[in-house]
């Protein structure tokens, strides 16, 4: 499934002039398809190659079969596992049977490396292969496969990316046990090993670790200003160990007060600025819940801090607090020493609950969703079964909440405080979505990376616990697909505003794939502090290095950069769709009919072509007519200047 940036490490197809494009390893199957390959890279390659071949593609390879050298190459390529830099083969097992839920048994060779599991079979026409990142494995189970022969062993890989793979194999005496090896590399942290990201040594032309520079980002927002200051109070993570070292707090609040506020907020997550409206100075402020407790504790400093936040925005004499939780849960939390701001202690504050259920509900919802989309999709009762997962309902709640936040900021010119319980789950979901709606910068390829780095990674979303990188404990109640939900919401927005985002669907899918893959350091660790301690920046690669090394792959050709446009997505379930391109992508029956990416890319090419023509004409014009002013420059209307050259 995982593919690699260009193929210095991939087998070269030397001397074939008819294959002009750069090849990623492992795409032999779709080799004839030209730049279809790019599309296949992650989204389809997995799908198609896993279960079947796209008829169109196999036709192609059929055609290719007539051409001997091509066929030869196809086979050569398939026999070899393409390895990424730093990856090594750990085990090869012949005659393994893959129990494909779509097309029955496939017998072939299974290769296990320290990064992925690779299965290929040449017995089928077209050749069949399967590629699973070990990081995506949530659970390993032995299953009963007596029906496939005596002393056969069965193995099921339950994956985080919505699929389950079953294998049957025979134990060979001289080989180490497959399950043990698999567990060793799939759950390295439990075996005292390091994650594969620390071994991965690809050289990228771009360094993704530099994408997010907090100072630059705050500067872009116009900070610091007279009301807000960049504070180093947390520079050694003493104030709050899950916050970044650089915080934006009101200018007039002394550090000591901040410490007292920290004591009053869950996990010491004090209210800090996330985003400021460039015109109205209304702000999005995030924090953890106040530790009010059953006895309605108060904290003067906290009250003053919020008052200052309100005062910093001259446009409004109100402050809105959005508590993402359900009000009943917030009350329960109050009994457990948590709670919410009381409107009587905080003057001019309006508190509303967004009624979003907790992480456990979300985890359960995705589990149900998996049952609906994998392996079989029920035709007749599709809608009601999707309805029963409530997944879309939660997406709707999130979007509705974010729209409300964005609307209060944009139309109400009012500052907003967002928190949930700890301020690291629902809070980043909401703030990041609201920022995405409000600020067109975050809708660019770079800007989105900054958004994720800032709101999610630096502010301490518990990626380690929520994803469970390299951890065996699949039943952990800390796991929850919150980031997946966020990306789903972003996808919903891209559906409703196809021209507003610079990145495409492939980008979103890639981000989710690498959320699990453990190939890059981006989503490892749970806070800036941990990241620093583990020296991720020097020891691992950033996902953004990979993305930004080939931005054209991830660019939406329809993108029109409309600054200062606020997007209000329709958060009605009538207008939400299940993201089948991600959740149901393993089902071969769901493969997109049209290589959408392909046509998009062609449009991009066309655009470039036309732009070149314009430039040529302009040159000609200036040559043949120096006297009269040159024709109107294309610069103004051509706002869609591509970033991908």
């Amino acid at each position, binding site marked *: 499934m995982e593919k690699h940036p260009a193929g210095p490490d991939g087998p070269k197809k030397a001397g074939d002039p008819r294959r*002009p494009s750069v090849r990623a390893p492992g795409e032999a199957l779709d080799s*004839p398809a*030209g730049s279809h390959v790019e599309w296949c890279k992650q989204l389809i390659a997995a799908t198609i190659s896993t279960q*079947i*071949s796209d*008829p*169109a593609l*196999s036709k192609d*390879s*059929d*055609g*290719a079969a*007539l051409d001997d050298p091509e066929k030869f190459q196809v086979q050569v390529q398939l026999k070899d596992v393409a390895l990424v830099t730093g990856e090594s083969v750990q085990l090869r097992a012949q005659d393994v049977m893959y129990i494909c839920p779509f*097309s029955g048994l496939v017998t072939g060779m299974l290769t296990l490396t320290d990064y992925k599991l690779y299965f290929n079979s040449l017995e089928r026409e*077209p050749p069949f292969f399967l590629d699973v990142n070990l990081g995506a494995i949530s659970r390993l189970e032995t299953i009963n496969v007596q029906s496939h022969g005596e002393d056969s062993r069965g193995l099921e890989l339950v994956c985080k990316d919505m699929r389950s793979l079953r294998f049957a194999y025979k134990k060979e005496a001289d080989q180490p046990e497959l399950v043990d090896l698999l567990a060793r590399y799939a759950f390295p942290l439990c075996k005292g090993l390091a994650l594969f990201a620390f071994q991965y040594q690809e050289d990228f032309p771009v360094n993704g670790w530099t994408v997010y520079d907090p100072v630059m980002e705050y500067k872009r927002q116009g900070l610091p200003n007279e009301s807000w200051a960049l504070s180093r109070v947390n520079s050694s993570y003493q104030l709050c160990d899950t916050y970044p070292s650089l915080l934006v707090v009101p200018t007039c609040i002394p550090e000591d007060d901040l410490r007292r506020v920290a004591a009053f907020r869950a996990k010491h997550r004090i209210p800090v600025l996330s985003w400021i409206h460039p015109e109205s100075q209304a702000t999005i402020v995030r924090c953890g819940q106040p530790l009010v407790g059953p006895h309605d504790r108060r904290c003067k400093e906290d009250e003053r801090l919020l008052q200052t936040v309100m005062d910093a925005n001259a446009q409004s004499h109100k402050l809105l607090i959005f508590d993402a939780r359900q009000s009943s849960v917030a009350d329960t939390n109050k009994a457990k020493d948590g709670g919410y701001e009381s409107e009587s202690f905080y003057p001019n504050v309006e508190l509303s609950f967004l009624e979003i259920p907790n992480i456990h509900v979300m985890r359960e919802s995705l589990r149900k969703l998996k049952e609906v989309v994998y392996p079989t*999709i*029920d*035709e*007749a009762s*599709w*809608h009601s079964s*999707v*309805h029963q997962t409530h997944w*879309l309902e939660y997406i709707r709640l999130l979007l509705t909440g974010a729209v409300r936040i964005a609307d209060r900021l944009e139309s109400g010119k009012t500052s907003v405080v967002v928190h949930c319980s700890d301020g690291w789950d629902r809070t980043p979901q909401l703030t990041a979505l609201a920022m995405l709606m409000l600020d067109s910068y975050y809708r660019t390829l770079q800007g989105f990376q900054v958004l994720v780095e800032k709101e999610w990674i630096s502010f301490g979303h518990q990626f380690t616990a929520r994803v469970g990188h390299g951890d065996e404990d699949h039943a952990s109640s800390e796991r929850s697909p919150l980031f997946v939900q966020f990306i789903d919401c972003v996808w919903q927005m891209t559906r*409703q*505003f196809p021209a507003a985002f610079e990145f495409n669907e492939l980008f979103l899918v890639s981000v989710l794939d690498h959320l699990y893959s453990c190939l890059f350091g981006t989503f490892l660790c749970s806070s800036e502090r941990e990241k620093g301690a583990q020296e991720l920046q020097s020891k691992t690669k950033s996902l953004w290095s990979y993305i930004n090394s080939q931005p054209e792959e991830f660019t939406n*050709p329809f993108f*029109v950069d*409309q600054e200062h*446009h*606020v*997007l209000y997505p*329709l958060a*009605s*379930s*009538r*207008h939400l*769709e299940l993201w089948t391109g991600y959740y149901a992508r393993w089902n*071969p*029956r*769901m493969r997109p009919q*049209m*290589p959408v990416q392909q*046509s998009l890319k062609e*449009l991009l*090419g*066309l655009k*470039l072509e*036309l732009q070149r*023509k*314009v430039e*040529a004409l*302009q040159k000609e014009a200036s040559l*043949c*007519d120096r*006297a*009269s002013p040159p*024709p109107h420059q294309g610069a103004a*209307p051509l706002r*869609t200047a591509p970033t991908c050259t």
Partner: protein
Amino acid sequence: MVPDMKERMLSPSGLNARSRDMFGLRCLPGECVLQRAVLVRKKLTAREGGGWLAGTLFCTHFRVSFVPQDSPKPDDNADPVLLGEHDVALASIEKVVAVGPSRTKLVTPNSSLKFTPEELVLYCRDLRVICFLFDRLTPDTQAVEITYTIAKTYQPLKPGCVLAFQNAALGSVEMKQFLSNRRRDGQMNWFESVDEWERELERCGAKGWRVSTVNDRFEMSTSLPRYNVVPQRVLDTELKRTFAHFNEGRIPRWSWRHPRGSDLLRMSSFQNNIYHEKDDTRNLELVLFGSQWSLCVVVDLGEEMPSPADLHLAHSRLRALCLGDISNSVTVPDDKWLSTLESTHWLDYTRCCLRKAGEVACLLRGGHMTVALQESEDRDMGCLVSSLVQVMCDPHCRTQEGFQGLVQKEWVMSGHRFYSRLNYHRDNDKEEAPVFLLFLDCVWQLWSQFPSRFQLTDHFLLALYDSTHLPLFSSFLANCQRERCKRTQHLTQTYTPVNGWRDVLPRGGLSLSSPTDSVDPPLPSVWDWALQYGGGRLSRFTQPVPPTPPTPPPPVVLNGNLNTNPDIRRMSDTVQGSVFLLSRGSFSSPTNLLPWRGGGGGGGGGGGGVAAAVYKRSHRRAPSSESLSGLERLLKATALTDAPQGLTSTSTSTTGPQGSPLDHYEPLLPLLLGPCMRVWKECYLRGVLHAQAFSHPVSSNHAHPVVRLALEVQQLHEQLALASASSSNSSSTASTINKPPPPRHRRPDANLNQNTNNGTFLFPAPRAQARPVPPAPTSSSSSANPKTSRVNSSASSSSSSSSSSSSSAAHKDHPSAGGSAKHTFLFGPPASSSQDPRAEPRYYPNAKLPHGNRPTIGS
């Protein structure tokens, strides 16, 4: 018509009838403004860009019109357009709701308002909901009056109102004159004359068929068209005897031929209680087998397909779900949306139709057989399935013209009961059924799964959907050609068209027992789009980036001679005259399938025996199981898109190197799984008001980036021309202008065809498409400077000459695309793009097939 209309008319209407411009509203000839309100804002849908638009609201006796504040001054000399961008015809309105400060009231002709409305909401039959907001500065009387006026004139449909509405729209002398002089679109096939049917036969390369005029006076069958395509081997005298054997006399008729040589036929069910004479039997067999002798599959459309009543129920449920209960504005709660949607079964029916059409398409692909669609009346699902099959298989039917021709052929001419099914008069609720709307939905599903294989867009489908709700068009106001003709003939007696009768618009509608028929306006066809909508909307009917350029199939195939499929050949070797029934996805050969064979039908006993004697070879032997399995294999291809079984040898062999040119005709088989059947939101959900609350200008409505870019290039060209012309160096400039191709780059000749030889993706070098320079800039620049005009005309001459043949999509192909450009990615050498943009008119957009010895691509 409302009696007090005269009093309600605003006074200036009579004064300046010539200019037809009243308060900025451009009226139709004879149209009267009844009421207007100023300072009104219209709520724009998400698709229109969202937000509010300020302007003036009018109510005439034909429509509710909204003229935006700064809309350009209307041009008096332009042809009348029925509906402006923000207009709604009174006949489309279903409910009028006034929203006051504290209450909401449904306004009926008799109700009185006790408050001044702040908001006026019009619920339309076509699922639009239009919302107007009165300003505080709008005079209260205007707000109240216009609400009353609309409520009084919108005419809740009842018998008789339709005629009044037609008269309001088209009844004026000027309008009648205008309509009579209107030339109809010569590009599309109207299937009204023998020539046109022959044109279709030629286009499909169907041999062995002829156009029969035996039903010229509708004596053989009242519901069939005048001209029907029947096998050449059957003489008219013989043909006449077959009518009685079919329900309503709807004998098997040819609809379409697949390039692999299969014919698609339609027929009604057999009349069983009739004596089959020996001669009859022979003719029946001839008619049914058409030009083939080998194999006939009868596809039963009765059992599995939804009945009209089912459809009606499903559609009204869907309506209620999407629009909410109009009277109390209660909508289905958001969290029940999915399950309620499922319970309407509308999507199930869509899937069912697509599946059936997919099966038929796969059968046809098998080649050399006759597939006859049989439905008891052959006037509903027969229309739907046969046209859907053609949309799937025939790229021509995915162009606007081709699609219009298709609807004309399979629906309008073949006698779909539009008049009863659409139930404009609300006098026949039992017969009402949205069969045609289901068809549009099915096509939309295909479109949404294969957008780049269509030249037409969803905007076109939506416009057609809307037009079915206007009782103005001859296409929809009759149940069959006979009814339409009755009216036309009647009219022509009293009213002589100027251009002779071939050019008269097809007019129709029922002559509604009105003795003074001459007052009935001539009804236009629905395809007269320019009459209905302004240019902006029309330009969105076709793709800015046109469909995947099809590879023209080699002519041999078109003649049905090339059969590259060994499997099929074996199948055609099977018993001559085998007939199978396809029902519920499996084949069978029941003995009583053809009532005249065997001893089946009542009274046919003796005759059957005789028939058997005559037709020994055909049915003494039982149909071989071999051909049965062959058929089933074909059908499996439908499932192929579904089932991941890899490719059966059958399909790989058909798509081998020799087969690849045919891939153009590979049916578009849609995915039918739950998630793939989607709701046509742009249609059904455009009225959902609460959803519009947060809508915003940034939406899909923006001009296509490429179109914008193309226009910009265009402008640059013009400026360049101007600049260089003024520099008096015109000779050198002319050459520079000519070098880059005329700029309006309508299509990237991007080839998505995955099946070209060697399996290599093919991206032919881009042909910058010759496009006529948009009139406005050209004329302005030419008037500015005579030299410029010369330059301009030279630049665009090559384009205008060729593009005139196919208006909207002047696609050109490049003959050598298969050769040199084989491995060019995206856009190859731009330098070569300047040569001869006129080369090789492509098969695609034109109705005619290329003839003779054209170089074939990839060979």
